[in-house]
């Protein structure tokens, strides 16, 4: 019986050790859900979790958060913010073509933020190297306050970079 418990405990410990990304990702989903930003797209596999969250704010339409586990517990935290312009007036389309597109060609990188313009949607992407275990307080418990602060800081920077591209 003691042997069975030993194997059971060790199996769970291994599962928890290899699931820190999932724990942090679950907390990210909860943080955004509580702020009224539901997840609208999921993709997940071994060492990779991606969620797109609907903001529909004054500037940002949505953001995508990707946790991509790389090596030795370190991974990439990539956040991509989206501005969506529903242009209907041909004059606005001409203006956008002449100004925004040419600006993009000049400044593909704004600091650590990469801008990508795809006609109606403009993306700003920030990638940082993160050790997801740094957000773990104890077994299965994520430092939600720190995580929320870090996410908020990145999203605010992306929003500032994209503000000038928002029409109407």
């Amino acid at each position, binding site marked *: 019986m003691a042997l069975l418990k030993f194997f059971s405990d060790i*199996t769970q410990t291994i599962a928890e050790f290899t699931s820190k990304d999932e*724990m942090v990702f679950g907390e990210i*989903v909860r943080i955004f859900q509580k702020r009224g930003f*539901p997840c609208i797209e*999921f993709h*997940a596999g071994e060492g990779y979790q991606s969620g797109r969250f*609907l903001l529909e704010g004054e500037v940002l339409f949505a953001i995508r958060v990707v946790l991509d586990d790389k090596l030795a517990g370190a991974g990439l935290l990539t956040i991509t913010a989206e501005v969506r312009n529903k242009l209907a007036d*041909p004059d606005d389309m001409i203006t956008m073509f002449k100004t925004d597109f040419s600006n993009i060609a000049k400044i593909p990188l704004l600091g650590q933020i990469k801008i990508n313009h795809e006609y109606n949607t403009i993306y700003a992407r920030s990638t940082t190297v993160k050790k997801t275990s740094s957000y773990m307080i104890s077994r299965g*418990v994520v430092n939600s306050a720190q995580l929320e602060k870090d996410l908020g800081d990145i999203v605010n920077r992306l929003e500032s970079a994209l503000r000038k591209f928002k029409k109407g």
Partner: protein
Amino acid sequence: MTTFAFDQELEDRFASLVVESWDRFDDMERNSWIDDVFVGAVITAHLDADMFLLKMESDGEAHFLTFSDQERNRRVVRVDHRLGEDYLYAKTVGHLAACTFGVGRAYPKISKFISASKAEFRSEFVAEGSVAGIADPGVMKVDVEGTIAVCETTLLLDLADYVDKVSLDVDTERLWAHIQATYQSLEKYLSGIMA
């Protein structure tokens, strides 16, 4: 040089066609988000119940989640929304999703492992997939995963009962009450076969 007679009325007509198109586009886009919003609410509800996400797999249409608590009990949720992803299907039949819920726990004794294995063997004989590849609803099945026995059942849910199709707001109280009811029955069955 080509010139043309500009007609403001025609341009206004074009602009209104674009606006109407965006409305239809939004409706179709939101249709594809319902299952993801549901899954997000399922994750939030489990985390609020002091569980943590242990495993997640998703191809965007079918989602598989495993949760654990501090006592190492497991909860498994599988949401298969491949039918409901189709716009026409969702508009006519509904946002149907085959949702499998499971409860798992480690065996307290080796004799319970044998009981669980017998139950798993019997589960293999359960008929499933006779309608649209969806498992027969409400049938309890046991799956032995290493040192853990998971008892699971499948329900055919309309996700629109939980997620508002326009605002995407979730009735979390209803959602959690339904999940709790399912878990309770699964716990009862698992306790029964482990007794």
